[in-house]
């Protein structure tokens, strides 16, 4: 994403991250090249691959990925450069002098075919029995280049056992073509460092620390590797068969909650371009599939804001008024990838994590208590499914502490891709579905819960409420249309200060019993920050550790995935910065179209505090159901 000046990048790729030049004047001009006898002028340092794209020539690629640093290992993108004895990998060759390039000579075509053929010879399995059939980059290349005969043979037996140990990510290394995208994702993009190539020669393979199962290493389950794997070597742990079984069991009451990000992306699985929100079509499709109830995760996102916001106020009150130790800054805890990341990498900071559960888990706890009670259903007959953009949510719902209802609060985490598969399997073409609403009693949710999907969204949702709580003014009076623009966009780290001034409002009734007034906040400045992608999270955490500016923050939003949930590990493949931008746009557009855009104004939230969580936010009942605790894992406990 942003800077590559970290130390964990594989050295062979580190100095070769070729930044796209944005301003020609700053990098010293342009250079003229001839591609297939056509002249084109490109900014100095443009890769041959980029230059070809600019002149409308398509070059096949495999190891190359927009989000990742250059590897130059698959060699499919080779081209001829006049005066050079060998072919050059176009993805890794920055143009710094005039040159003549040919992209389709006999030597180039033969090399590409041979390389694809070699990859196929080591790639285990048959396409028709593969879940990536039709969506596999290797298959697409073989088709495009007419490689259809296994010239160099084909492996008949799998080389490696499939690693199904993880709740989230399944690794089938027999299908791996060693493009190392997963390695670069894990080490460089996310700075987690679970996957790396081991051994050499024909024994080279991608492995974990001591070749342990994924479940036993410090994988954070973000699934970003899945999103970037060109083949079926990596995939999410798919529970759809169990879900079908539950749907088919007449005794079971099957409930699904849907998060905003899958709704903004699932259209891509049905041939729509990125950025089409399918919320209401999806409601109909899910009912037709056989789910008994469809609920909106945004409802518990609103609830999260109230709980997490109250928690923040209590921490600030403790620190500023009671002058006691309070773990500040408070960190958000709704991204389960981030939670596991901090448990592994910064276990000494777990007190800073909000104890509020993620919206998925809050919903799970409420469905098997509040809802089951209300609907008169035995909670043991309820099967609770969560449609999430996320592979880490599968791990989260299997955490032993997530049994607040007395049952497993959420039975299955389902990704966007898996949901699309179920919908297709049911013979439904999603875009053609009529629109319908969410089910009661959680029907309506606010736009604040909706924007949780994009990086900065949780913070924006929180600020919309905090501003009104503390200042007693409308958010719209401070931020135009209640859009808090500085918190939006894809900068790796965002920082904002909100001066509170000397005018404060009344403490709202809902938390009146916790803080008497806001006078203690007069003149204070609220400092907040947002990071997405664990590499950026690491920057903030290291800054906090060193006592830097972020240690003075009050509240920080962290999302494990680049772009936030819209770029989650369960989202449709491929993922690129452009696609993530469009998904985010869809979410913000939907938010703006809503009447209800602040969590505390959600009538259902108000209702649940009146009817069920009667001792209020952060009260006894909510602590039991809506809050959790964390595990100091360190580097050695998976």
């Amino acid at each position, binding site marked *: 994403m942003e800077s590559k000046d970290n130390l964990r990048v594989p050295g*062979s790729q580190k*100095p070769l991250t070729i930044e796209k030049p944005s301003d020609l004047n700053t990098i010293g001009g342009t250079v003229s090249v001839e591609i297939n006898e056509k002249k084109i002028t490109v900014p100095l340092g443009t890769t041959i691959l980029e230059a070809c794209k600019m002149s409308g020539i398509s070059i096949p690629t495999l190891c190359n990925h927009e989000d990742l640093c250059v590897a130059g290992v698959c060699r499919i993108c080779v081209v001829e450069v006049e005066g050079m004895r*060998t072919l050059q990998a176009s993805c890794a060759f920055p143009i710094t002098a005039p040159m003549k390039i040919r992209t389709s000579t006999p030597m180039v075509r033969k090399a590409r075919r*041979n390389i694809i053929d070699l990859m196929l010879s080591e790639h285990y399995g048959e396409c028709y029995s593969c879940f990536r059939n039709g969506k596999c980059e290797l298959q697409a290349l073989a088709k495009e280049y007419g490689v259809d005969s296994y010239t160099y043979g084909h492996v008949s037996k799998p080389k490696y056992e499939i690693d199904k140990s993880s709740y989230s990510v399944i690794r089938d290394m027999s299908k791996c073509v060693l493009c190392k995208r997963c390695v670069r994702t894990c080490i460089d993009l996310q700075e987690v460092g679970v996957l790396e190539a081991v051994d050499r020669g024909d024994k*080279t393979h991608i492995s974990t620390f001591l070749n342990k199962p994924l479940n036993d290493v410090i994988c954070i389950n973000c699934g970003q590797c899945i999103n970037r794997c060109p083949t079926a070597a990596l995939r999410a742990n798919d529970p759809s068969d169990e879900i079908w079984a539950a749907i088919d069991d007449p005794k079971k009451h099957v409930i699904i909650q849907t998060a905003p990000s899958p709704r903004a992306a699932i259209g891509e699985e049905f041939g729509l371009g990125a950025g089409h929100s399918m919320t209401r079509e999806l409601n109909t499709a899910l009912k037709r599939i056989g789910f008994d109830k469809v609920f909106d995760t945004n409802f518990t996102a609103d609830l999260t804001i109230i709980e997490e916001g109250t928690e923040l106020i209590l921490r600030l009150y403790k620190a500023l008024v009671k002058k006691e130790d309070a773990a500040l800054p408070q960190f958000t805890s709704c991204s389960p990838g981030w939670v596991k990341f901090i448990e592994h990498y910064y276990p000494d900071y777990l007190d800073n994590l909000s104890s509020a559960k993620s919206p998925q888990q809050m919903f799970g706890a409420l469905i098997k208590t509040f809802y089951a009670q209300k609907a008169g259903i035995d909670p043991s007959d309820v099967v609770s499914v969560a449609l999430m953009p996320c592979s880490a949510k599968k791990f989260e719902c299997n955490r032993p502490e997530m049994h607040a209802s007395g049952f497993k609060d959420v039975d299955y985490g389902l990704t966007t891709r898996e949901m699309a598969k179920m919908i297709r399997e049911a013979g439904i073409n999603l875009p053609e579905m009529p629109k319908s609403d969410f089910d009661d009693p959680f029907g309506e949710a606010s736009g604040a819960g909706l924007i949780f999907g994009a990086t900065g969204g949780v913070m924006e949702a929180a600020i919309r409420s905090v501003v009104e709580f503390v200042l007693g003014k409308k958010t719209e009076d401070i931020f135009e249309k209640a859009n808090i623009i500085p918190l939006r966009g894809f900068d790796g780290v965002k920082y904002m200060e909100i001066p509170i001034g000397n005018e404060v409002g009344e403490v709202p009734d809902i938390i009146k019993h916790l803080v008497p007034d806001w006078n203690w906040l007069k003149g204070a400045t609220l400092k907040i920050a947002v990071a997405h992608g664990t590499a950026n999270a690491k920057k903030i955490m290291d800054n906090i550790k060193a006592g830097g500016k972020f240690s003075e923050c009050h509240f920080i939003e962290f999302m494990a995935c680049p772009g936030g949930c819209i770029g989650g590990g369960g989202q449709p493949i491929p993922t690129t910065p452009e696609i993530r931008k469009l998904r985010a746009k869809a979410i913000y557009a939907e938010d703006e179209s809503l009447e209800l855009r602040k969590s505390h104004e959600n009538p259902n939230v108000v209702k649940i505090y009146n009817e069920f969580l009667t001792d209020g936010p952060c009260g006894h009942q909510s602590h039991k159901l809506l809050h959790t605790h964390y595990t100091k894992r360190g580097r050695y406990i998976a």
Partner: protein
Amino acid sequence: MEKKERKGAVLFSAYKRGDGIKKVLAKSREDVLLDIRESKLKGRGGAGFPTATKWMMVAAANSETKYIICNADEGEPGTFKDRVLLLEYPELVFDGMVIAAYIIGAKNGIVYLRGEYEYLKKSLEDYLESMRKDNLLGQNILSKKGFDFDITIRMGSGAYVCGEETALIESLEGSRGEARNRPPFPVTTGYMGHPTTVNNVETLASIPHIVSKGGEWFKKNGTDKSTGSKLFSVSGDCRKPGVYELPWGTKISDLLKIVEAEDSKAVQVGGASGFCIPKSQFNRTLAYEDAATGGSIIIFNESRNMLHILKNFMEFFVEESCGQCTPCRIGNVKLLEGIRMIEKGEYTFNYMNQLKDLGRTMQVASKCGLGQSSPNSFISILENFKDEIFNGNGGNNGK
């Protein structure tokens, strides 16, 4: 062979430690570089890049920190000349590094020593210590103000690919030994991102002689395109194997006479990654422009089975490929499988031609020199010895 028995016009000629350094310190960096350019010295590791050009690029690079790395990861099957230089002529190698440092403006030198040569480490370190005592290393070398340079020895871990300069740098940085994409080249972005020159032991050892006796003197030996002399590590079927210094341009047949090889059928020039030259071509000369080599000469007589030899080479490459790029990682396996097919007599000429074609793809599409050169023996042995190999008897010499 003992040191006193070694004879040679350049490298094995007389030289006293420190003489070359004294000489260059009296001159400007530019003049020394011109001397070296005059000699037309090319890299002795095998690729033959002009040394003066490389140093000019590092000298011109704008950086406070620069490195000179001596590539002593002598791993090509059949080479052992660098070991002789390090063991018997360390003054040449280290003086060469000091001179290089003076020219390019490096403060740090690293010897990347082959893992298997660990037994040399102690004596080399002792030697460096003695140079420090004589102010040939350290601060203000030979009282030249501001000329600070020192050398450390770092051990390789036994990977053949780390002889490739960018993989060597990766290894030095603590990463997997894998070749980097080029450009950028080490001369601008090398060790720890700083301008770096990586030179073979023998290249560096030539430098003190050149600066002491001049480029013209150096050029008296060799051919126009291959100046000077070369150390050859001769092994295989001959009576006198060992390290020989011979002028570039020596005919293979003459070399065979010198080492007393009889009944020779083939000579592998350049080690496993080189080419196999059959008897009919023994009048070819050893030179960059003809039969180029980093020094390895392996002689085979009529009793040898060429297919077995080839298989041995290919097994070596299958194991030593770093495994990052597709053509080299899988291609070498396919070539080896082809050899096994011939052994069993289960092959078609069509498929063998397909494999040669694959070899040619590997030569142009692999990421580094390893995969680009590993098909050389496959192609040259299958072409030059096809009667013997495709004899319907699994390549078994008609027996």
